[in-house]
């Protein structure tokens, strides 16, 4: 086993998580799981910020992560409010059921 974890390994791990989240957004139809996949992508970006912050000995990355965490919390609250509104209207959490404009 190598003695040192290179920065590109950590960054590749972040992009792996990001693309897993992206695939989840694209293949799932359950809107709750789509929101969870968006959280995965946000987390991957946060870890990228922290990695660069450590690699470059700067603090700007960690400051950005704070604001991203705040925005993510607000985003998931609003998103879950939308899920509840959608469920009350359509009795479903399936995105294929969102077709009011087609009717």
């Amino acid at each position, binding site marked *: 086993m190598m003695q040192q974890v290179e920065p590109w390994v950590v960054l590749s791990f972040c992009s792996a998580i990001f693309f897993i989240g992206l695939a989840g957004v694209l293949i799932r139809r359950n809107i709750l799981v789509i929101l969870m996949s968006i959280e995965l992508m946000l987390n991957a970006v946060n870890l990228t910020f922290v990695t660069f*912050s450590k690699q470059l000995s700067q603090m700007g990355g960690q400051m950005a992560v704070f604001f991203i965490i705040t925005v993510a919390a607000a985003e998931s609250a609003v998103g879950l409010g939308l899920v509840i509104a959608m469920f009350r209207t359509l009795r479903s959490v399936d995105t294929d059921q969102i077709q009011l404009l087609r009717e």
Partner: protein
Amino acid sequence: MNISPIFFYAFASIAIACSLLVILKKNPVASAFSLVMVFFSFAGIYAMLDAHLIAALQVLVYAGAIMVLFLFVIMLLNADLPSFDLGRSHILQRILVGASCLVLFGMFVWSFKESPTTAAVGHFTPEQIEAAGGNTRVVSELMFSEHILPFELTSVLLLGAIVGTVAIAKRKLTRSS
């Protein structure tokens, strides 16, 4: 970077396995619990990268608040309806998504490996941070001096999010309107 390879690879493999479970499990509650595991492994990696305050916030905000919100909504909606879906999204679409995500991932890995970053190195080395009183102190001082305006704007954002959520979730939408 001087982080322990054993712990990094352990956390990274847990995170990748659990995030695959998040998008592949049929039950949203199982997805939510896999997501909690992903958040905890991320918190471990943050702590290894000397971002202690962010590691604590990750556990408190993500694994605590956001996941409780998700579980509340899942339970509230009684979402064990047959709302599932992996069978119904087209097989060609799934293959296409998987292949394009793999290609993009390969491009990212290649570019991270081949082009080392050339940005200027700052002065927050681990020794400097240790001398200034630790990561939490340095981050807090920066937040209340240099980044005070975004910090204050954050409170406006949260207020807007609260009001918006209540307005959206309370209103009775009808199909005909």
